[in-house]
Protein backbone atom coordinates (compact mmCIF):
# COMPACT_ATOMS: atom_id res chain seq x y z
CA UNK A 1 0.00 0.00 0.00
CA UNK A 2 3.05 2.25 -0.12
CA UNK A 3 3.90 4.50 2.77
CA UNK A 4 0.92 6.75 2.35
CA UNK A 5 -1.41 6.84 5.32
CA UNK A 6 -4.99 6.63 4.16
CA UNK A 7 -8.28 7.65 5.71
CA UNK A 8 -10.44 4.60 5.18
CA UNK A 9 -14.22 4.35 5.66
CA UNK A 10 -15.36 0.85 6.67
CA UNK A 11 -19.02 -0.06 6.29
CA UNK A 12 -20.64 -3.33 7.46
CA UNK A 13 -23.59 -4.15 9.71
CA UNK A 14 -21.33 -6.57 11.63
CA UNK A 15 -19.53 -4.36 14.17
CA UNK A 16 -17.04 -7.08 15.04
CA UNK A 17 -15.96 -7.40 11.45
CA UNK A 18 -15.54 -3.65 11.14
CA UNK A 19 -13.46 -3.62 14.35
CA UNK A 20 -11.23 -6.42 13.07
CA UNK A 21 -10.55 -4.73 9.75
CA UNK A 22 -9.99 -1.38 11.47
CA UNK A 23 -7.40 -2.86 13.79
CA UNK A 24 -5.59 -4.47 10.88
CA UNK A 25 -5.57 -1.33 8.77
CA UNK A 26 -4.54 0.88 11.70
CA UNK A 27 -1.59 -1.44 12.27
CA UNK A 28 -0.55 -0.67 8.71
CA UNK A 29 -0.59 3.01 9.54
CA UNK A 30 -4.00 4.07 8.26
CA UNK A 31 -6.86 5.74 10.08
CA UNK A 32 -10.34 4.25 9.97
CA UNK A 33 -13.91 5.51 10.15
CA UNK A 34 -16.80 3.12 10.78
CA UNK A 35 -20.41 3.02 9.70
CA UNK A 36 -22.93 0.25 10.24
CA UNK A 37 -25.60 1.28 7.79
CA UNK A 38 -25.80 2.81 4.32
CA UNK A 39 -27.25 6.14 5.37
CA UNK A 40 -24.51 6.79 7.93
CA UNK A 41 -21.87 5.67 5.42
CA UNK A 42 -23.04 8.19 2.82
CA UNK A 43 -23.17 10.90 5.48
CA UNK A 44 -19.65 10.17 6.77
CA UNK A 45 -18.24 10.01 3.24
CA UNK A 46 -19.64 13.46 2.51
CA UNK A 47 -18.36 14.92 5.77
CA UNK A 48 -14.93 13.28 5.94
CA UNK A 49 -13.87 12.70 2.29
CA UNK A 50 -12.13 9.36 2.92
CA UNK A 51 -9.35 8.19 0.58
CA UNK A 52 -10.93 4.75 0.30
CA UNK A 53 -14.25 3.13 1.13
CA UNK A 54 -14.71 -0.55 1.92
CA UNK A 55 -18.37 -1.48 2.12
CA UNK A 56 -20.49 -4.60 2.53
CA UNK A 57 -23.34 -5.19 0.11
CA UNK A 58 -26.10 -6.05 2.56
CA UNK A 59 -26.73 -3.06 4.76
CA UNK A 60 -29.69 -1.52 6.53
CA UNK A 61 -30.86 1.81 5.04
CA UNK A 62 -29.37 1.79 1.50
CA UNK A 63 -27.37 -1.20 0.39
CA UNK A 64 -23.71 -1.28 -0.58
CA UNK A 65 -24.46 -0.63 -4.24
CA UNK A 66 -26.20 2.62 -3.37
CA UNK A 67 -23.33 3.59 -1.09
CA UNK A 68 -20.90 2.83 -3.94
CA UNK A 69 -22.84 4.96 -6.40
CA UNK A 70 -23.17 7.92 -4.05
CA UNK A 71 -19.52 7.86 -3.00
CA UNK A 72 -18.31 7.63 -6.61
CA UNK A 73 -20.51 10.58 -7.49
CA UNK A 74 -19.40 12.76 -4.58
CA UNK A 75 -15.74 11.67 -4.46
CA UNK A 76 -14.56 10.65 -7.95
CA UNK A 77 -10.98 10.09 -6.73
CA UNK A 78 -12.04 7.72 -3.96
CA UNK A 79 -12.08 4.02 -4.88
CA UNK A 80 -14.75 1.78 -3.40
CA UNK A 81 -14.27 -1.87 -2.57
CA UNK A 82 -17.41 -3.95 -2.25
CA UNK A 83 -17.35 -6.94 0.10
CA UNK A 84 -20.13 -9.44 0.29
CA UNK A 85 -21.18 -12.82 1.61
CA UNK A 86 -23.43 -13.28 -1.45
CA UNK A 87 -20.80 -14.64 -3.77
CA UNK A 88 -22.40 -14.81 -7.20
CA UNK A 89 -21.26 -13.66 -10.66
CA UNK A 90 -24.20 -11.26 -10.89
CA UNK A 91 -23.09 -9.55 -7.70
CA UNK A 92 -19.66 -8.83 -9.16
CA UNK A 93 -21.30 -7.40 -12.28
CA UNK A 94 -23.57 -5.19 -10.22
CA UNK A 95 -20.62 -4.07 -8.10
CA UNK A 96 -18.55 -2.95 -11.06
CA UNK A 97 -21.64 -1.46 -12.68
CA UNK A 98 -22.14 0.74 -9.63
CA UNK A 99 -18.54 1.95 -9.89
CA UNK A 100 -16.69 -0.31 -7.46
CA UNK A 101 -12.98 -0.69 -8.17
CA UNK A 102 -12.71 -4.08 -6.56
CA UNK A 103 -14.98 -6.82 -5.26
CA UNK A 104 -14.11 -9.09 -2.39
CA UNK A 105 -16.24 -12.10 -1.45
CA UNK A 106 -16.55 -13.19 2.17
CA UNK A 107 -15.02 -14.88 4.01
CA UNK A 108 -11.84 -13.04 3.10
CA UNK A 109 -8.46 -13.05 4.70
CA UNK A 110 -6.82 -9.83 5.78
CA UNK A 111 -4.15 -10.48 3.19
CA UNK A 112 -6.93 -10.56 0.56
CA UNK A 113 -8.20 -7.23 1.87
CA UNK A 114 -4.75 -5.71 1.60
CA UNK A 115 -4.38 -6.94 -1.98
CA UNK A 116 -7.80 -5.61 -2.89
CA UNK A 117 -6.90 -2.20 -1.48
CA UNK A 118 -3.61 -2.11 -3.42
CA UNK A 119 -5.48 -3.08 -6.56
CA UNK A 120 -8.19 -0.47 -6.09
CA UNK A 121 -5.68 2.30 -5.47
CA UNK A 122 -3.60 1.29 -8.47
CA UNK A 123 -6.67 1.42 -10.70
CA UNK A 124 -7.49 4.89 -9.49
CA UNK A 125 -3.97 6.26 -10.01
Amino acid at each position, binding site marked *: MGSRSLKILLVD*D*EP*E*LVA*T*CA*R*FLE*RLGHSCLSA*YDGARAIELAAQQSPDLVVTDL*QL*PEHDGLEVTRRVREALPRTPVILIT*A*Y*NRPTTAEAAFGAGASAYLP*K*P*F*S*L*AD*LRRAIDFALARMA
Partner: protein
Amino acid sequence: MPYEAYFRAASESLIIVDGNGCIVEANPKTWQIFGYAKGELVGQPIEVLVPERLREQHRKHREAFMVSPRSRPMGIGMSLAARRKDGTEFPVEVSLTYAPGTKRGDLIVASVIDITERLALERDARRAETLTSLGSAAAGIAHDLNNPLSVVLSRAELLLGTPEDALSPQMLREDLEVIHRQAERASRIVSEFLELSRHGPKATAPLQLSDLVDKALLLMGEQMRKAGIAVNVALQSGLPPVMGDAVSLERVLINLLSNACDAMPRGGEVRIASARDSRPGWLRLSVADNGPGIQPHALDRIFDLLYTTKAGGSGLGLWLSRRIVQEHKGKIEVQSEPGKGAVFSLLLPGVENAAEA
Protein backbone atom coordinates in the same frame (compact mmCIF):
# COMPACT_ATOMS: atom_id res chain seq x y z
CA MET B 1 -81.81 -51.18 -14.10
CA PRO B 2 -79.54 -48.13 -14.09
CA TYR B 3 -78.50 -48.55 -10.44
CA GLU B 4 -77.21 -52.00 -11.02
CA ALA B 5 -75.27 -50.84 -14.01
CA TYR B 6 -73.82 -48.01 -11.94
CA PHE B 7 -72.94 -50.38 -9.12
CA ARG B 8 -71.13 -52.69 -11.50
CA ALA B 9 -69.32 -49.99 -13.41
CA ALA B 10 -68.49 -47.57 -10.60
CA SER B 11 -64.87 -46.48 -10.41
CA GLU B 12 -64.89 -46.47 -6.64
CA SER B 13 -65.31 -49.53 -4.54
CA LEU B 14 -68.92 -49.92 -3.30
CA ILE B 15 -69.75 -52.37 -0.56
CA ILE B 16 -73.26 -53.05 0.75
CA VAL B 17 -73.35 -54.16 4.36
CA ASP B 18 -76.29 -55.23 6.53
CA GLY B 19 -77.06 -54.32 10.14
CA ASN B 20 -74.82 -57.14 11.40
CA GLY B 21 -71.82 -56.00 9.44
CA CYS B 22 -72.20 -58.74 6.88
CA ILE B 23 -71.27 -57.99 3.26
CA VAL B 24 -74.39 -58.29 1.14
CA GLU B 25 -72.85 -57.22 -2.12
CA ALA B 26 -69.56 -55.82 -3.39
CA ASN B 27 -68.89 -54.34 -6.80
CA PRO B 28 -66.14 -55.35 -9.23
CA LYS B 29 -63.98 -52.38 -8.24
CA THR B 30 -64.03 -53.73 -4.69
CA TRP B 31 -62.84 -57.17 -5.77
CA GLN B 32 -60.14 -55.48 -7.79
CA ILE B 33 -58.66 -53.22 -5.14
CA PHE B 34 -58.95 -55.77 -2.35
CA GLY B 35 -57.74 -58.72 -4.44
CA TYR B 36 -60.76 -60.99 -4.14
CA ALA B 37 -62.49 -63.14 -6.75
CA LYS B 38 -66.10 -62.54 -7.76
CA GLY B 39 -68.53 -63.60 -5.06
CA GLU B 40 -65.82 -64.30 -2.46
CA LEU B 41 -66.75 -61.39 -0.26
CA VAL B 42 -70.51 -61.98 -0.04
CA GLY B 43 -71.49 -63.21 3.40
CA GLN B 44 -68.16 -62.25 4.98
CA PRO B 45 -67.98 -59.77 7.84
CA ILE B 46 -66.90 -56.33 6.65
CA GLU B 47 -64.05 -56.49 9.16
CA VAL B 48 -62.24 -58.93 6.88
CA LEU B 49 -61.32 -55.85 4.83
CA VAL B 50 -59.81 -54.13 7.86
CA PRO B 51 -56.35 -54.88 9.34
CA GLU B 52 -56.63 -57.23 12.32
CA ARG B 53 -55.37 -54.71 14.85
CA LEU B 54 -58.15 -52.29 13.86
CA ARG B 55 -61.04 -54.74 13.69
CA GLU B 56 -62.32 -54.29 17.24
CA GLN B 57 -62.29 -50.51 16.84
CA HIS B 58 -64.05 -50.82 13.51
CA ARG B 59 -66.72 -53.07 14.96
CA LYS B 60 -67.40 -50.56 17.74
CA HIS B 61 -67.55 -47.77 15.19
CA ARG B 62 -70.02 -49.73 13.12
CA GLU B 63 -72.22 -50.49 16.10
CA ALA B 64 -72.20 -46.83 17.13
CA PHE B 65 -73.14 -45.91 13.60
CA MET B 66 -76.13 -48.24 13.64
CA VAL B 67 -77.39 -46.57 16.80
CA SER B 68 -77.67 -43.19 15.05
CA PRO B 69 -77.07 -43.86 11.41
CA ARG B 70 -76.71 -41.00 8.98
CA SER B 71 -74.83 -40.62 5.77
CA ARG B 72 -71.45 -39.10 6.33
CA PRO B 73 -67.82 -39.44 5.50
CA MET B 74 -66.06 -41.78 7.88
CA GLY B 75 -63.24 -40.42 9.97
CA ILE B 76 -62.17 -37.41 7.96
CA GLY B 77 -58.67 -36.49 8.98
CA MET B 78 -58.01 -39.92 10.47
CA SER B 79 -55.84 -42.25 8.50
CA LEU B 80 -57.87 -45.29 7.65
CA ALA B 81 -56.20 -48.50 6.62
CA ALA B 82 -57.69 -51.27 4.54
CA ARG B 83 -56.51 -54.83 4.17
CA ARG B 84 -56.26 -56.85 0.97
CA LYS B 85 -56.86 -60.56 0.70
CA ASP B 86 -53.10 -61.14 0.70
CA GLY B 87 -52.73 -59.28 3.99
CA THR B 88 -51.11 -56.14 2.58
CA GLU B 89 -52.53 -52.78 3.64
CA PHE B 90 -53.29 -49.52 1.86
CA PRO B 91 -54.67 -46.13 2.91
CA VAL B 92 -58.30 -45.35 2.10
CA GLU B 93 -61.02 -42.77 2.36
CA VAL B 94 -64.44 -44.10 3.21
CA SER B 95 -67.87 -42.55 3.04
CA LEU B 96 -71.05 -44.18 4.28
CA THR B 97 -74.60 -43.95 3.02
CA TYR B 98 -77.50 -45.25 5.05
CA ALA B 99 -80.15 -47.10 3.05
CA PRO B 100 -82.98 -48.10 5.39
CA GLY B 101 -86.02 -50.21 4.59
CA THR B 102 -84.74 -52.12 1.59
CA LYS B 103 -85.90 -55.62 0.73
CA ARG B 104 -82.95 -56.86 2.73
CA GLY B 105 -83.51 -54.61 5.69
CA ASP B 106 -81.53 -51.58 6.74
CA LEU B 107 -78.34 -51.43 4.77
CA ILE B 108 -75.19 -49.34 4.69
CA VAL B 109 -73.37 -48.61 1.49
CA ALA B 110 -69.69 -47.92 1.95
CA SER B 111 -67.77 -46.19 -0.78
CA VAL B 112 -64.04 -46.78 -0.54
CA ILE B 113 -61.29 -44.93 -2.39
CA ASP B 114 -57.68 -46.06 -2.43
CA ILE B 115 -55.70 -42.91 -1.69
CA THR B 116 -52.19 -44.35 -1.92
CA GLU B 117 -51.35 -42.30 -4.98
CA ARG B 118 -52.89 -39.12 -3.65
CA LEU B 119 -50.95 -39.38 -0.39
CA ALA B 120 -47.75 -40.01 -2.33
CA LEU B 121 -48.42 -36.95 -4.47
CA GLU B 122 -49.13 -34.87 -1.39
CA ARG B 123 -45.93 -36.06 0.22
CA ASP B 124 -43.96 -35.30 -2.93
CA ALA B 125 -45.50 -31.86 -3.15
CA ARG B 126 -44.59 -31.19 0.46
CA ARG B 127 -41.09 -32.43 -0.14
CA ALA B 128 -40.74 -30.36 -3.30
CA GLU B 129 -41.89 -27.34 -1.40
CA THR B 130 -39.35 -28.05 1.30
CA LEU B 131 -36.62 -28.56 -1.27
CA THR B 132 -37.46 -25.27 -2.95
CA SER B 133 -37.40 -23.59 0.40
CA LEU B 134 -34.19 -25.41 1.18
CA GLY B 135 -32.67 -24.30 -2.11
CA SER B 136 -33.28 -20.67 -1.40
CA ALA B 137 -32.50 -21.29 2.23
CA ALA B 138 -29.13 -22.71 1.19
CA ALA B 139 -28.16 -19.43 -0.42
CA GLY B 140 -29.32 -17.56 2.65
CA ILE B 141 -27.56 -19.96 5.02
CA ALA B 142 -24.31 -19.67 3.09
CA HIS B 143 -24.58 -15.94 3.38
CA ASP B 144 -25.38 -16.08 7.06
CA LEU B 145 -22.49 -18.41 7.79
CA ASN B 146 -20.07 -16.27 5.83
CA ASN B 147 -20.50 -13.38 8.20
CA PRO B 148 -19.46 -15.07 11.44
CA LEU B 149 -16.80 -16.98 9.53
CA SER B 150 -15.32 -13.73 8.23
CA VAL B 151 -14.93 -12.47 11.74
CA VAL B 152 -13.40 -15.72 12.98
CA LEU B 153 -11.00 -15.84 10.05
CA SER B 154 -9.88 -12.26 10.12
CA ARG B 155 -9.69 -11.95 13.89
CA ALA B 156 -7.56 -15.10 14.11
CA GLU B 157 -5.38 -13.77 11.30
CA LEU B 158 -4.93 -10.55 13.17
CA LEU B 159 -3.76 -12.40 16.26
CA LEU B 160 -1.44 -14.62 14.28
CA GLY B 161 0.06 -11.55 12.63
CA THR B 162 0.74 -9.90 15.97
CA PRO B 163 4.34 -10.21 17.16
CA GLU B 164 4.51 -12.20 20.38
CA ASP B 165 5.81 -9.36 22.48
CA ALA B 166 2.80 -7.29 21.45
CA LEU B 167 0.30 -9.98 22.45
CA SER B 168 -1.15 -9.03 25.80
CA PRO B 169 -3.23 -11.58 27.75
CA GLN B 170 -6.10 -9.11 27.72
CA MET B 171 -5.98 -8.76 23.93
CA LEU B 172 -5.85 -12.54 23.58
CA ARG B 173 -8.81 -13.00 25.89
CA GLU B 174 -10.94 -10.37 24.13
CA ASP B 175 -10.17 -11.69 20.70
CA LEU B 176 -10.78 -15.26 21.71
CA GLU B 177 -14.12 -14.24 23.15
CA VAL B 178 -15.08 -12.63 19.86
CA ILE B 179 -13.96 -15.70 17.92
CA HIS B 180 -15.86 -17.97 20.29
CA ARG B 181 -19.02 -15.93 20.08
CA GLN B 182 -19.00 -15.87 16.31
CA ALA B 183 -18.28 -19.58 16.09
CA GLU B 184 -21.23 -20.26 18.40
CA ARG B 185 -23.39 -18.11 16.20
CA ALA B 186 -22.31 -20.06 13.14
CA SER B 187 -23.11 -23.34 14.82
CA ARG B 188 -26.55 -22.06 15.84
CA ILE B 189 -27.24 -21.25 12.22
CA VAL B 190 -26.16 -24.72 11.17
CA SER B 191 -28.36 -26.45 13.70
CA GLU B 192 -31.36 -24.32 12.72
CA PHE B 193 -30.74 -25.24 9.12
CA LEU B 194 -30.56 -28.91 10.03
CA GLU B 195 -33.86 -28.55 11.86
CA LEU B 196 -35.32 -27.20 8.61
CA SER B 197 -34.34 -30.28 6.66
CA ARG B 198 -35.29 -32.90 9.18
CA HIS B 199 -38.04 -35.21 7.92
CA GLY B 200 -38.08 -37.60 10.82
CA PRO B 201 -41.35 -38.73 12.42
CA LYS B 202 -41.99 -36.82 15.57
CA ALA B 203 -43.21 -38.15 18.87
CA THR B 204 -46.84 -37.35 19.58
CA ALA B 205 -48.25 -37.42 23.07
CA PRO B 206 -50.71 -35.42 25.15
CA LEU B 207 -48.88 -32.37 26.52
CA GLN B 208 -49.85 -29.84 29.12
CA LEU B 209 -49.12 -26.25 28.12
CA SER B 210 -47.94 -25.58 31.66
CA ASP B 211 -45.26 -28.28 31.32
CA LEU B 212 -44.06 -26.75 28.05
CA VAL B 213 -43.78 -23.35 29.72
CA ASP B 214 -41.93 -24.82 32.71
CA LYS B 215 -39.42 -26.55 30.47
CA ALA B 216 -38.86 -23.51 28.29
CA LEU B 217 -38.32 -21.30 31.35
CA LEU B 218 -35.89 -23.86 32.75
CA LEU B 219 -33.78 -23.41 29.64
CA MET B 220 -34.25 -19.67 29.13
CA GLY B 221 -34.77 -18.42 32.66
CA GLU B 222 -31.15 -17.70 33.51
CA GLN B 223 -30.53 -15.87 30.28
CA MET B 224 -33.64 -13.76 30.75
CA ARG B 225 -32.74 -12.90 34.33
CA LYS B 226 -29.28 -11.83 33.26
CA ALA B 227 -30.79 -9.67 30.54
CA GLY B 228 -32.88 -7.87 33.13
CA ILE B 229 -36.14 -9.33 31.88
CA ALA B 230 -38.88 -9.99 34.40
CA VAL B 231 -41.02 -13.01 33.61
CA ASN B 232 -44.68 -13.03 34.53
CA VAL B 233 -46.54 -16.33 34.16
CA ALA B 234 -50.33 -16.58 34.12
CA LEU B 235 -51.40 -20.11 33.24
CA GLN B 236 -55.03 -21.11 33.45
CA SER B 237 -55.48 -24.35 35.36
CA GLY B 238 -57.62 -27.25 34.21
CA LEU B 239 -56.85 -26.86 30.53
CA PRO B 240 -56.99 -29.99 28.36
CA PRO B 241 -53.70 -31.18 26.92
CA VAL B 242 -52.62 -30.72 23.31
CA MET B 243 -51.31 -33.56 21.15
CA GLY B 244 -47.82 -33.01 19.96
CA ASP B 245 -44.09 -33.32 20.09
CA ALA B 246 -42.80 -31.73 23.29
CA VAL B 247 -39.34 -31.00 21.88
CA SER B 248 -40.68 -29.11 18.85
CA LEU B 249 -43.23 -27.09 20.79
CA GLU B 250 -40.63 -26.20 23.42
CA ARG B 251 -38.46 -25.02 20.57
CA VAL B 252 -41.22 -22.68 19.43
CA LEU B 253 -41.67 -21.28 22.91
CA ILE B 254 -37.91 -20.80 23.30
CA ASN B 255 -37.80 -19.02 19.97
CA LEU B 256 -40.52 -16.61 21.12
CA LEU B 257 -38.79 -15.98 24.45
CA SER B 258 -35.46 -15.49 22.72
CA ASN B 259 -37.00 -12.97 20.33
CA ALA B 260 -38.52 -11.11 23.26
CA CYS B 261 -35.06 -10.95 24.85
CA ASP B 262 -33.53 -9.63 21.65
CA ALA B 263 -36.24 -6.99 21.43
CA MET B 264 -35.43 -5.66 24.88
CA PRO B 265 -31.65 -5.42 25.23
CA ARG B 266 -32.00 -3.06 28.17
CA GLY B 267 -34.44 -5.29 30.03
CA GLY B 268 -38.19 -5.34 30.22
CA GLU B 269 -41.05 -7.66 30.96
CA VAL B 270 -42.33 -10.81 29.34
CA ARG B 271 -45.75 -12.19 30.14
CA ILE B 272 -46.62 -15.81 29.34
CA ALA B 273 -50.27 -16.76 29.53
CA SER B 274 -52.40 -19.77 28.67
CA ALA B 275 -56.17 -19.93 28.36
CA ARG B 276 -59.03 -21.35 26.35
CA ASP B 277 -59.42 -19.50 23.09
CA SER B 278 -62.75 -17.95 22.10
CA ARG B 279 -62.98 -20.71 19.50
CA PRO B 280 -64.35 -23.76 21.35
CA GLY B 281 -61.87 -26.60 21.77
CA TRP B 282 -58.85 -24.39 21.07
CA LEU B 283 -56.17 -23.28 23.49
CA ARG B 284 -54.13 -20.07 23.33
CA LEU B 285 -50.58 -19.75 24.62
CA SER B 286 -49.24 -16.22 24.37
CA VAL B 287 -45.87 -14.55 24.90
CA ALA B 288 -46.09 -10.80 25.32
CA ASP B 289 -43.26 -8.31 25.71
CA ASN B 290 -43.18 -4.58 26.38
CA GLY B 291 -40.40 -3.88 23.93
CA PRO B 292 -40.43 -1.44 21.02
CA GLY B 293 -43.01 -3.39 19.07
CA ILE B 294 -42.94 -4.36 15.41
CA GLN B 295 -43.23 -1.96 12.50
CA PRO B 296 -46.35 -2.48 10.36
CA HIS B 297 -44.35 -3.27 7.22
CA ALA B 298 -42.40 -5.95 9.08
CA LEU B 299 -45.52 -7.50 10.59
CA ASP B 300 -46.55 -9.04 7.26
CA ARG B 301 -43.16 -10.54 6.63
CA ILE B 302 -42.10 -11.59 10.06
CA PHE B 303 -42.80 -15.29 9.51
CA ASP B 304 -41.16 -15.38 6.09
CA LEU B 305 -38.16 -17.58 5.51
CA LEU B 306 -34.92 -15.65 5.91
CA TYR B 307 -36.69 -12.42 6.90
CA THR B 308 -34.98 -10.85 9.85
CA THR B 309 -34.71 -7.41 11.38
CA LYS B 310 -31.76 -8.38 13.54
CA ALA B 311 -28.16 -7.76 12.58
CA GLY B 312 -26.85 -11.28 12.66
CA GLY B 313 -30.32 -12.80 12.68
CA SER B 314 -30.83 -15.96 10.66
CA GLY B 315 -34.41 -15.40 9.57
CA LEU B 316 -35.21 -18.99 10.43
CA GLY B 317 -36.67 -18.86 13.93
CA LEU B 318 -40.22 -17.67 13.28
CA TRP B 319 -40.49 -19.50 9.98
CA LEU B 320 -39.59 -22.75 11.71
CA SER B 321 -41.90 -21.95 14.60
CA ARG B 322 -44.79 -21.37 12.27
CA ARG B 323 -44.06 -24.60 10.46
CA ILE B 324 -43.95 -26.55 13.69
CA VAL B 325 -47.23 -25.04 14.88
CA GLN B 326 -48.87 -25.81 11.54
CA GLU B 327 -47.65 -29.40 11.78
CA HIS B 328 -49.51 -29.50 15.08
CA LYS B 329 -52.65 -28.34 13.26
CA GLY B 330 -52.42 -24.99 15.02
CA LYS B 331 -51.81 -21.36 14.15
CA ILE B 332 -49.35 -18.71 15.25
CA GLU B 333 -50.37 -15.08 15.35
CA VAL B 334 -48.73 -11.79 16.20
CA GLN B 335 -50.19 -8.53 17.37
CA SER B 336 -48.05 -5.46 17.72
CA GLU B 337 -47.90 -1.72 17.39
CA PRO B 338 -44.72 0.32 17.40
CA GLY B 339 -44.04 1.48 20.95
CA LYS B 340 -46.51 -0.99 22.43
CA GLY B 341 -44.60 -4.26 22.54
CA ALA B 342 -45.65 -7.45 20.79
CA VAL B 343 -47.81 -10.46 21.57
CA PHE B 344 -47.16 -13.75 19.86
CA SER B 345 -49.92 -16.33 20.29
CA LEU B 346 -49.94 -20.04 19.61
CA LEU B 347 -53.37 -21.49 18.93
CA LEU B 348 -53.53 -25.24 19.34
CA PRO B 349 -56.41 -27.71 19.38
CA GLY B 350 -57.09 -29.22 22.81
CA VAL B 351 -56.95 -32.99 22.85
CA GLU B 352 -60.69 -33.61 22.82
CA ASN B 353 -60.61 -31.82 19.50
CA ALA B 354 -57.44 -33.26 18.04
CA ALA B 355 -59.22 -35.82 15.86
CA GLU B 356 -61.30 -33.15 14.22
CA ALA B 357 -58.48 -30.57 13.87
